[in-house]
């Protein structure tokens, strides 16, 4: 049973990460792939506060999420003032730099990782309670992104994304909006990190590196960018498929390469067959379906 619980938790955390990342890269069009570093901040801050400073775990989790939010504002403010592409550079720099720092100071456990993180709920209310908590957070995240994207704020977001000059000409503050969305998405990632840390009780800087960035990006793109359900489908697919493969009783010589090819294969397949992702954003793919007919004699 614990296997299923773990899988559900990882899928739910994937949903939180992918949905919040979709808010940033999809709806707001902010180019950044440093989402895992905010996941890491949430995990480390919450784990360290609870382990070394006796802060109750739920409070530590919220502080972890707030720390991720604060860090994201600190990264976004200067870089967004200049121009969009700088956010990509600044955030990757921040991601790599912070992870490097974590590896080199002793109170984070260094490169060997942080152990003995206090558990939460598992011993008092059982694993089911924790699963319910994480799934609850995932559902709330999806509902939140949905209400943001489909409300008046979402319309303002797409206006800003599609034409920032026109948007500014209407008297709206683009930078404030970008920073707010970036902070909200990063804060949610931080919360996911805190939820991860107190269930699995071990974190290491390695797991928040660029490979994780690629995994979250793949979830969003394969699922369907700029849609509510796309990141959810993407997260489920990318977490469950590698597990499903292990049940096929394949020989070891085949299992290894197959797992390795999975991510790359999925991205390639989707690039050719369904560039809009499994769940297509309405306004986005209608023109592309018409496109092949345009140039025909």
């Amino acid at each position, binding site marked *: 049973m614990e296997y299923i619980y*773990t899988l559900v938790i990882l899928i739910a955390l994937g949903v939180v990460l992918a949905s919040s990342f979709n808010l940033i890269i999809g709806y707001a069009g902010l180019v950044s792939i440093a989402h895992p570093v905010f996941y890491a901040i949430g995990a480390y801050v919450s784990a360290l506060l609870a382990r070394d400073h006796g802060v109750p775990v739920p409070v530590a989790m919220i502080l972890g999420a707030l720390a991720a939010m604060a860090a994201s504002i600190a990264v976004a403010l200067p870089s967004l003032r200049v121009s969009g592409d700088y956010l990509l550079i600044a955030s990757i720099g921040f991601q790599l730099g912070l992870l490097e720092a974590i590896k*080199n100071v002793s109170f984070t456990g260094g490169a060997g990782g942080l152990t003995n993180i206090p558990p939460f709920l598992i011993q008092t209310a059982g694993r089911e309670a924790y699963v319910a908590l994480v799934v609850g957070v995932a559902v709330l995240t999806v509902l939140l992104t949905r209400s943001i994207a489909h409300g008046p704020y979402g319309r303002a977001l797409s206006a800003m994304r599609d034409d920032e000059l026109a948007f500014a000409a209407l008297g709206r503050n683009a930078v404030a909006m970008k920073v707010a969305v970036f902070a909200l998405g990063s804060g949610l990632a931080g919360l996911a990190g805190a939820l991860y840390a107190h269930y699995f009780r*071990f974190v290491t800087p390695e797991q928040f590196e660029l490979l994780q960035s690629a995994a979250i990006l793949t979830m969003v793109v394969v699922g369907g960018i700029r849609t509510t359900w796309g990141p959810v489908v993407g997260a489920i697919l990318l977490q469950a498929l*590698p*597990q499903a493969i292990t049940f096929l009783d394949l020989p070891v010589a085949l299992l290894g390469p197959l797992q390795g090819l999975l991510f790359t294969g999925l991205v390639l397949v989707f690039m050719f067959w*369904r560039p809009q992702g499994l769940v297509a954003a309405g306004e986005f793919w209608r023109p592309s379906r018409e496109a092949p007919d345009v140039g025909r004699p």
Partner: protein
Amino acid sequence: MKQTRSFTRRSALLAGTAALALVGASSAQAQEALRFGMAMPLSGGQATYGQDQVKAAEWAVAEINQKGGVNGKKLEMIVLDTRADPQAGIQAANRLISVEKVPAFVSAWSAVVKAIAPVANDNKVVQLSVGANSADIAKLGDYTYTTFPLADVDITAVARYAATQMGKKKAAVIYINNETGTVAAQIYRDVFTKAGGQVVAYEAYDPKASDWTGPLLKVRAAQPDMIHIQGLVADTPQVIAQMRQLGLTQPVSSYSAVYNPKLIEQLGKAAEGVIATSLAPGVTDSPAVAAYVERWKKEVGREPNGLPYTQYLYDAPYIVAAVYKSMDDKKLPMTGENFRKEMLAMRSFDLPLTGKLTINDDHTVNKPVYLMEVKDGKWTQKAVVN
């Protein structure tokens, strides 16, 4: 139209995959066999090592079964991929514990072993770490045991040998800035200083570096008479090559990961005089090992990557089989708790490729350390440190 068709085809494929998965799971549960797990990297950057290690373990399982299995029961190994990644490792461990219901399983790679430890403790299932060498492995709780000597064993031997037998006074330590590197470099520094030497340079390099000129020049400026490199299999040969190019001709020592035919292949003449350690008897020490390496050459056409590690992995199923046999003799239920109790009661195991193993109460093991040196393009034994 085209869109819908390709979508149905894909959903058919997905449904098929799911159905196959269910069939696979149910047929595996129907068999009567004594099962244990193995969580190793089969894909990703560490796969070259993980796959060879799993192959060695598979040979051992086949051999045990050929000789009648465990009291006539078949020994079965369930292999899962960890990609040497902690999160994938946790999933593999959970799968082994709650789906396959094994009382014990083998794992490796320090970060993975550490990540799995809480899972093993919670479920009271024994994790045998075979190959991870971080000193922390001994402190992970009641259900994680190592059958592989931890970093302090061979690093201590090589540091002490340099200071006392080779008479070196000034050593430089250059190490990779990750778990393996930092912990072991500290051990080297402490042991070498304690043995009367002095560490004149202590330089770290980034795990992703492809140029080491900076730290190497600092080492050169410090003028050591011995250089210890604590890197990984992939980067150490490159560090040595660059070091020689920069005119550093001092003797070089390293540890077990470097003891590998690849080093000589990659470095050629520059490999001469490099000292590494091996924690398992070599081809010249044991006819069983010689036959084992022959088998690799015959069946796979090459020597295994990281020979000593594969020797330990080959022996792991023998430990599991011995404990299972004792549990079966006493008619104990196959649980992790009983496995742990029996393993600690037996304590000593005579193993085909790595010799005698004794599991200490503090979750460590002691093994002789073989110091190997490259001479005339070949690894030759320099000394055995007990």
